[in-house]
């Protein structure tokens, strides 16, 4: 059964177009120009119960807006969406009790108080049965290894520890659907790894439906079988992570190690030479050409070792984003102004 169903979902913002300079700002008081930003531009998506889906895309692609629409924080301009059979932006309490949203860049815990005080508040707001609450709290704390930090004011925790507390707060009511917006942003490798492990274990145990956005390919590779790539408010890819390489990477990398310092000088006739470190060399070759190139190299030279690899995923995706954002002009929303 589908947990999330989205049909032609669209969110358009009207944004004040600010021109440079003082005079233009004053003029803007009287006469404002607006332009429409299509943050989400007619998305169709179905997510089955218990799936762990990653949302990838450059900044401003519409990932966060989609999560906010599905959480009912925003009302769409047009289109339909149902999560667990509810229309999110009706903000029914029955629905709000069954999902959670975690945003890596914002926190909801009381800053000056120990996290456990905020947790208690959640228990009451979500009306969680006290014994069940204690049990969940214990489980989550031991999975995340933060038992000792529960009594420490949140402002004294490290970023990684704080993120773990945010996750706990979001999971206390055992949501059936979980939206994670860049949960590992700004964290060091160890904390990232901890959170990945936690999410994997938790998801396997609870079979929660999870939608994750992240900039870290490692998060995605570690957790999600299904990847949805969004760019310019549209879905440009929906499938497995490896499928991205099959579809979007037109090249492979051949690494060669030659015998006895015999490095042939004319490798460039096979493809782009990426790196030469005698006796090793790396060439980037069109996928269709790989068998032919291998054949010739092996026939002509004495080669000790050879391997054929896909280009690194990051590179492929960066290339893919670059292509798609050229089609749809950049859509980034204005950032929070810096104040002095």
């Amino acid at each position, binding site marked *: 059964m589908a947990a999330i169903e989205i049909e032609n979902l669209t969110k358009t913002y009207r944004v004040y177009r600010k021109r440079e300079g003082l005079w233009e700002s004053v003029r803007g008081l009287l006469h404002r120009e607006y332009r429409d930003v299509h943050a989400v531009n007619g998305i169709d998506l179905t997510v089955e119960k218990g799936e762990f889906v990653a949302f990838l895309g450059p900044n401003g692609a519409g990932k966060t807006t989609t999560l906010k629409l599905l959480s009912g924080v925003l009302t769409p301009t047009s289109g339909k969406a149902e999560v667990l059979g509810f229309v999110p932006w009706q903000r029914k309490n029955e629905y709000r009790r069954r999902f959670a949203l975690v945003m890596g860049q914002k926190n909801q815990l009381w800053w000056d108080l120990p996290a456990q005080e905020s947790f208690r*508040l959640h228990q009451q707001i979500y009306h969680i049965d006290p014994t069940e609450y204690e049990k969940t709290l214990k489980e989550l704390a031991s999975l995340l290894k933060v038992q000792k930090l529960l009594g420490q004011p949140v402002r004294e925790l490290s970023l990684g520890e704080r993120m773990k507390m945010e996750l706990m707060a979001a999971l206390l009511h055992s949501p059936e659907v979980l939206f994670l917006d860049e949960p590992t942003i700004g964290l060091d490798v160890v904390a990232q790894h901890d959170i990945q492990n936690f999410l994997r274990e938790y998801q396997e145990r609870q079979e929660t439906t999870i939608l994750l956005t992240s900039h870290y390919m490692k998060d995605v590779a570690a957790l999600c079988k299904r990847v949805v790539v969004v760019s310019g408010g549209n879905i440009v890819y929906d499938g497995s992570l490896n499928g991205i390489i099959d579809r979007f990477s037109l090249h492979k990398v051949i690494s060669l190690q030659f015998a006895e310092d015999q490095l042939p000088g004319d490798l460039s006739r096979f493809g782009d030479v990426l790196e030469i470190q005698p006796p090793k060399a790396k060439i980037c070759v069109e996928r269709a050409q790989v068998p032919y190139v291998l054949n010739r190299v092996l026939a002509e030279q004495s080669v000790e070792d050879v391997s054929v690899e896909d280009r690194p995923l990051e590179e492929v995706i960066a290339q893919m984003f670059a292509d798609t954002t050229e089609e749809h002009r950049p859509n980034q929303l204005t*950032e929070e102004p810096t104040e002095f």
Partner: protein
Amino acid sequence: MHSEQPNYTQVFLTFARNSLIRDMTFRWDFIIQAVSSLCWMLMNLGFYLLIFQYTKEISGWSKYQFFLFMATTMIINSLVQTFFMPNAAEFSELIRTGGLDFALLKPIDTQFLISFRRVEWASMSNFVFGLGLLSFSLWQLEVMPTWWQVLLFPVFVFCGVLIFYSLMITLAATSIWLGRNQSLYNFWFYITNFSRYPLEIYRGPYGSWLQWFFTFLIPVLVVVNVPARLLAQEMDRQKWGLTAFAVFAAVMSLLASRWIFQSALGSYRSASS
């Protein structure tokens, strides 16, 4: 399994408790806040002591009757400051930073959540001071309140708090449309300033226009006047009429502010991540 509504009283008590824990963490801030607002009250009182050197009464209110009026103002204002002021001020910030997102996710009435999140316990010092001034004035007036006065006074103080709350939440809600509303405090001060004086001083062509406006359109004049009159003055038919109107005004303000708040929420557009 989780079909029940949250227990609103319990949630509120936890808010109050958490706020107190926080206040106690920064105890010096707490003490300074309490002392400075007490000083402000004392200066106010001193100012009127000066004025009453030159006059016996202000439009029918003798010195201690007027002090009783001031005490009522303090009690009502301190309640608003304790329970609503910090929340309204924070609301504007929640909108600008997108923090309101979290409030919208919770399975609890959003207006309740943002109205009661924080309690500023330090402002209760004014409440205690107000009660003290009230008792002192009654003693000076040699008035022993009857049982119905003791019963009705808190009821109309409550009505007054409701009217102020409605005004405040309406002002706060406008920041959803404006994106940022830093004039909130100013506006609040301008408007509620009128409530701090007896109704009787608003006379003459300009005064009666003000009286009408601030009784029937923005009913801030009934907030303090109604409970203060109950204790300090002889009640007559006209005064009872205004008292009844205060209940009506409180209910209407609350309904109007609820409606404005809800429609403002519909226009919320969050902030980018």
